């Protein structure tokens, strides 16, 4: 086991690590260390990596593979197998539509369709300005509140297509500057009738 300070190996990639805020790699190192460099802890390590980087970049996967002494193909295989891991950057805001059975019975597909139409995107995509990611999930276990929408981690129950679109629009406007907010509001009112 090499000491952590010699972590970044003297390879051409070293500069990459230095540029990209080493603190985030330290988070990965901490988790690896906590699991005593066990290869079995790969999923835990990848989860931590995704939490600190937002998504699993190629160099992050390579780094994890090297630290755990696993073949890169193995790490890539695990990262692509599980739905939780994303190899693409995620949007600033996250919108998850539940497509579990109870939500399906309560017509959550209509909510998804409305959101897709309003923001011109498909489930699993991120808007070109990187503001919004739209994804689906199979049951959050909040079936009593169906249909359910998750906006940036907050669970919203009993949504309709209209209320969902309104909530997402409101969320996007919050982060915009006041002037652009006014503009988008006016375009919105034009669209409505």
């Amino acid at each position, binding site marked *: 086991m090499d000491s952590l300070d010699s972590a970044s190996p003297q390879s051409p990639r070293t500069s990459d690590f230095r540029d990209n805020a080493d603190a985030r790699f330290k988070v990965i190192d901490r988790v690896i260390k906590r699991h005593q460099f066990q290869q079995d802890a790969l999923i835990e390590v990848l989860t931590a990596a995704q939490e600190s980087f937002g998504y699993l970049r190629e160099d992050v996967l390579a780094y994890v593979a090297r630290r755990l002494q696993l073949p890169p193909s193995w790490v890539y295989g*695990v990262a692509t*197998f599980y739905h939780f891991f994303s190899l693409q950057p995620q949007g600033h805001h996250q919108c998850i539509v539940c497509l579990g*059975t109870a939500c*399906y019975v309560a017509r959550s597909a209509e909510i998804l369709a409305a959101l897709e139409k309003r923001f011109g995107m498909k489930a699993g995509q991120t808007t070109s300005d990187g503001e919004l990611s739209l994804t689906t999930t199979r049951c959050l276990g909040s079936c009593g509140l169906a249909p359910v929408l998750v906006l940036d981690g907050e669970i919203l129950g009993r949504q309709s297509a209209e209320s969902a679109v309104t909530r997402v629009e409101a969320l996007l406007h919050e982060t915009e500057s006041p002037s652009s907010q006014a503009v988008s509001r006016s375009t919105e009112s034009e669209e409505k009738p």
Partner: protein
Amino acid sequence: MNRVELQAMAETERNRQKAFQCRFLCCVGTPCLSAGGGVVQEALKQAIAVQGLDATVEVVGAGCMGPCSRGPLVRVLPAGGEEAIYEHMTPEKAGALVEAFAGPGCSSFPEESRISSDSPFFGKQVKIVLSGSGRVDPDRLESCVAEGAYTALAHALREMTPEEVCQEVVRSGLRGRGGAGYPTGVKWNLMRKAQGERKIVVANGDEGDPGAYMDRTLMESDPHRVLEGMALAAYAVGADQGYVYVRGEYPLAAQRIQRAIQAAERQGLLGNRILESRFNFRVDVRMGAGAFVCGEETALMASIMGRRGQPVPRPPYPAQRGLWGLPTLINNVETFGNIAPIIQHGGEWYAGYGTEKSRGTKVFALAGKVSWTGLIEVPLGITLREIVFDIGGGIPGGRSFKAAQTGGPSGGCIPAAHLDTPMDYESLQELGSIMGSGGLIVMDDRSCMPDVAKFFMEFCMDESCGKCAPCRGGTVQMVRLLQRITDGGAAPEDLEQLKELCLLLKETSLCGLGQTAPNPVLSTLRHFREEYDAHIREGRCPAGVCDLSGNSME
């Protein structure tokens, strides 16, 4: 900590609770929290502080109380008075609630938001697994101990041999609650006799069936119940290491279990020399990362070992060669939830509930088109009608009952004609469905059955791990055929091909996911054949869900 100290802890906590004039238990399960339960709890605390009642009134978080659609829920326990649950609580109502129960005046609280304990929702329920849920504070060990946590373990470690623990579970007739229904006692006996340097116990909390959240609720509401069950299992089979595998979508459940493990270890209720005996048992939490197939036991083990969650053929069974080649006992979280009461009250007591072949109680997550949705625990053998119309309060909006879906993507739909079927493992299987983990989704006449079949088949297509060809390719073909049916472009031959594919998947898939994937199609074909015919031959969707090239949706 030893047995006497455990009793003392329980006694101290009970006395502490009795000292309060009134106690408010706020549901802190995910459904109530997402309905705003956290704010309500804060508001109650503030109201008490404002009215200066800190010494006589307590506000605590508690687990799930059942009727999730009515959340946020608050249970009121007035000293000497009748307890009740108040539904749809808001921060604005908090002050009035405190005043009504603990204030000096005789103000009263609106009766319409009160759910009394004799409400029909609770009438037919028997709470064994969920007995502590909604009453104990999951984050405080003392609160769980006061309700009897770890007394069964203390009893078993002192008075029972591992064989006797296994025998008690055999006598109870408990069957695996994950869906397949394998007798738990038999599994434990096999595991006890298995040869291995070390043995491992795993709680399967990868509850992937959409519409099922029993395991999550139990882990969130009464984590010590699960841990105690695991420890009893470990003692019975001779294991010293345990894992709780929690589905990735359940961060709160994982956090509560983790905290519970730490608290129990600090008090010597888990870890080394448990309750000053020679028994050692460590428990670790493993998080899933979003793969339905990991509910299958061999895939689950692969995932615990940090690999892709792909199943491998059995035998060897996990009891022979499991995690890292060691004998491994895998039971569902809910199964472990049954163990402590069985040891405490005896197997015969437990076998007194349920039917001849399906003993005990089962937790169902009742959802869909019923007036009362939420988590219920009923004796097995209760009829579907009782669940839907008595407990669930019937179909809202004057609609009619069409079908109930059990068992998630591996189960099937039960039509109205079979409403009086007893809910037990065998009867459900005869109808082409399965007990499954306990999701029960009620559909009214606005659900289209071929569309439902397509929904589940799409789920299986997405979740197929891709290892074996029948499942990987078959699910795609079946989705295509079902898509054609719901689009109105299907020919009568397509139905034959669909049936053939069903048989192929059932017979040749590697694991349970593929083998049971055709069930939703087969059961809807069996009970709702006329709907398929209407789509194919008449070009119409009786429920008005499918857009058959522009001649429906009216």
